[in-house]
């Protein structure tokens, strides 16, 4: 758990660090973008200013061309007008000429100063160009409604004696259009101002020209008269013509800003001012036209000036955001990968710890306390098992029952967990089956039947099973496809002859051959799995059975022989990985318990009170042969029943007789021969008690001979030399 917490904390820190990094990167990038934006703003503003100024200059030049033309038209006709003053009827032709010879001029008049010519108190012939034509029509401005002597274009030149450009006006009753007029006073030859000669310019062309100003999408031009009247303004939905800027400012509700614009524009020659209009900032670039005092201006909304830099900035920010988003995604993917890896690692650790537990459990299944039988001087047993992986498919086991060593060594096909499960099953089957079987052949057959019947995974087990009579050194064994063990004597190493048979689990009703041999005192049985003979070094050479034989030192003890083999195989393999489970089992038969006697005698009188002597006799034999206490009691019981029979029935009542009891110790059995000289009696043919009868029907007798027959393995009777000879034997 601690490890897990720690790794989770580490993971959190990593993720946190990653996001901090992203935030820092984002802030840096955005600050850079902003700085770049503000620096480029200045440049952009300068550029806008230059564009506006050049546009203004171009417009101004065009205006000056037009007004110069108008001025020239008037001045060129000054002398002829002067001359014609004496012939007023020719004056209309003068005005017609002014209009017809000058395309820029739409109308012209010669207005006499009232009273100059007594015959004509008011006289002002007016030539007006027909729209779209070169021809003119002649009108007269000398009407009461028009009252030309009060018009500005008339009064100012008369007062000043100079040429004058009028404020723009709609000439009602004259040209009936928005126009401006250049008027020049005409003096007669006496020097008195006699008339005013004019040329009208329509402001329509100016409107057209100003409308063409589109240096930015919604930038527009504006022309203001010298008194601040708006002459031309394309977006004039709220600015009325001929309003002053001041009046417009009041109607727009932002008078302060507009007053400043007004002031700047009316007092300075040129420049630019900023004005807020409808909540947006605008730059107004302006320039005064000297001749007329008109102010040309271009209004550009700030957001359009900075549109390109804004667009660039936005693009940069967008790209940066996309980049950051990608980094975030990559980081998240990395974090996820890391988390997955961590989880995988946790799972792996958990599996490893479970494997360790499995390994411990597996190791606890096999006996590994050495020496295993410290009280038994007749055997020396040692074993070792090294799985190639955490758990293995090798097994060994042994235990002593009824003075016999039951042992097994086996190798499950495959390695790892599947093999270990089969190993556990095999080991427990060995224990279960051998608890009731004395024959290794039957043990192996029963294990095979059980294993083959439920072998869905086609696993098989090679196995060597043996039963060693510790009393006699007699070895019964059965081999199921396993490597033949070696018999190591004081001066030689020989393979134990084995019938190979099939491994366990292959064929359900396979037959297995049991074999037997005798181990003599000091002989050692060396068993191993193919993990030893097939141990591989880096050169892919196998350790081989030849090396096993040559590495065994004859006469070694069980532990010594296994330790030596471990060292040899380890030196041979070097640093090559262990390819298979390696198991060794050594059993040395010492024969120390074999009693020195082979025969024992006891002679009793035919007195029932001597029966307890049998108990002492058996106890002594049991001590010397180390047979189990339960077996000793059974032998005691069989002997007592047989001898009681003789004492009770062989000799006539009251006569003295003897019972001779001889115990003979053989390799794997003990035999009792009971001899008497009484009447012939063959207990082997006596009827047996029926032990299945209910209590009420049970006869009191007949149990004794039944017990003898049940306990002993063989029972034979012989009558020879006038003696009853009863032989009975029991395997030990």
């Amino acid at each position, binding site marked *: 758990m601690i490890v897990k917490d720690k790794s989770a904390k580490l993971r959190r820190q990593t993720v946190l660090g990653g996001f901090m990094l992203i935030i820092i990167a984002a802030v840096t990038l955005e600050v850079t973008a902003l700085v770049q934006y503000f620096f480029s703003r200045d440049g952009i503003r300068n550029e806008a200013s230059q564009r506006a100024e050049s546009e203004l200059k171009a417009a101004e030049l065009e205006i000056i061309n037009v007004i110069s033309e108008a001025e020239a038209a008037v001045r060129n006709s000054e002398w002829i007008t002067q001359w014609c003053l004496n012939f007023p009827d020719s004056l209309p032709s003068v005005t017609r000429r002014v209009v017809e010879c000058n395309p820029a001029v739409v109308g012209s008049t010669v207005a006499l100063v009232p009273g100059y010519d007594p015959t004509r108190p008011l006289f002002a012939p007016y030539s007006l160009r027909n729209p779209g034509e070169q021809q003119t029509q002649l009108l007269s401005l000398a009407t009461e409604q028009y009252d030309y002597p009060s018009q500005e274009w008339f009064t100012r030149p008369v007062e000043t004696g100079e040429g004058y450009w009028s404020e723009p006006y709609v000439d009602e009753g004259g040209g009936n259009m928005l126009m401006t007029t250049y008027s020049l006073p005409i003096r007669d030859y006496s020097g008195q101002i006699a008339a005013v000669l004019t040329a009208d310019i329509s402001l329509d062309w100016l409107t057209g020209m100003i409308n063409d100003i589109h240096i930015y999408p919604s930038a527009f031009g504006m022309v203001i008269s010298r008194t601040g009247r708006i002459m031309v303004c394309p977006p004039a939905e709220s600015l009325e013509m001929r309003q002053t800027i001041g009046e417009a400012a009041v109607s727009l509700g932002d008078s302060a800003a507009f007053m400043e614009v007004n002031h700047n524009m009316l007092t300075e020659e040129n420049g630019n001012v900023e004005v807020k209009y409808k909540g947006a900032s605008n730059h107004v670039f302006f320039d005064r036209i000297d001749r007329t005092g008109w102010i040309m201006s271009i209004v550009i909304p700030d957001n359009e000036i900075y549109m390109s830099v804004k667009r660039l900035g936005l693009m940069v920010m967008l790209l940066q955001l996309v980049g950051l988003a990608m980094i975030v995604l990559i980081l998240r993917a990395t974090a996820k990968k890391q988390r997955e890896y961590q989880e995988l690692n946790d799972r792996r650790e958990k599996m490893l710890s479970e494997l360790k537990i499995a390994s411990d459990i597996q190791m606890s299944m096999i006996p590994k306390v050495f020496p295993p039988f410290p009280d038994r001087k007749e055997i020396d047993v040692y074993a070792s098992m090294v799985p190639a992986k955490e758990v293995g498919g090798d097994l060994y086991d042994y235990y002593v029952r009824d003075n016999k060593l039951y042992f097994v060594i086996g190798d499950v096909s495959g390695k790892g967990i599947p093999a270990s499960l089969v190993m556990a099953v095999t080991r427990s089957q060995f224990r279960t089956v051998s608890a009731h079987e004395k024959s290794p052949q039957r043990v192996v057959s029963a294990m095979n039947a059980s294993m083959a019947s439920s072998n869905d995974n086609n696993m098989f087990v090679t196995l060597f099973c043996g039963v060693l009579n510790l009393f006699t050194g007699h070895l019964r064994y059965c081999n199921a496809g396993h490597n033949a063990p070696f018999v190591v004597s004081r001066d030689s190493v020989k393979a134990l002859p084995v019938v190979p048979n099939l491994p366990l689990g292959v064929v359900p009703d396979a037959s297995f051959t049991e074999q037997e041999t005798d181990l003599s005192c000091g002989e050692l049985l060396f068993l191993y799995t193919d993990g030893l003979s097939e141990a591989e070094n880096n050169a892919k050479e196998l350790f081989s059975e030849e090396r096993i034989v040559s590495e065994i030192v004859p006469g070694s003890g069980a532990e010594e022989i296994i330790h030596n083999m471990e060292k040899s195989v380890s030196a041979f393999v070097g640093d090559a990985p262990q390819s298979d489970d390696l198991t060794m089992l050594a059993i040395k038969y010492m024969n120390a318990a074999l009693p020195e006697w082979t025969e024992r005698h006891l002679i009793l009188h035919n007195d029932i009170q001597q029966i307890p002597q049998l108990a002492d006799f058996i106890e002594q034999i049991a001590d010397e042969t180390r047979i189990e206490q339960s077996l000793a*009691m059974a032998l005691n*019981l069989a002997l*007592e029943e047989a001898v*009681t029979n003789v004492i009770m029935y062989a000799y006539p009542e009251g006569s003295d007789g003897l019972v001779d009891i001889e115990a003979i110790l053989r390799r794997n059995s003990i035999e009792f021969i009971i001899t008497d000289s009484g009447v012939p009696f063959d207990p082997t043919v006596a009827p047996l008690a029926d*032990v299945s*009868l209910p*209590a009420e029907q049970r006869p009191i007798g007949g*149990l004794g001979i039944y*017990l003898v027959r049940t*306990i002993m393995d063989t029972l034979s009777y012989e009558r020879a030399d006038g003696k009853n000879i009863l032989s009975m034997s029991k395997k030990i």
Partner: protein
Amino acid sequence: MKVTVENQGLETIVWFEGRLDTPSSLEVSKQLEEEISAKEASRTVILDCTKLDYISSSGLRIFLTLRKAASAAGGKVVIRNMNDNIRSVFLITGFLNLFEVF
């Protein structure tokens, strides 16, 4: 071999101690004939084998005699605490089926 008979209320307990071989069975047989009358046999007789080390066929005969007397008198015989060796003798002779064994 030592046998003690003890009456506890409606039960009679017989304590066996030692080896019940042929000679000792003869003595025990006589002792029990005296101490277990028809009165005891009509009730419950408990044979305690905790300290019984060995039994031969003559010993088994004593148990069977008690069993027959009890069933004749309307009582019953219960055997308790046999060791494994004694139990195996009861097993091979079919005696395990004749008694209530605890």
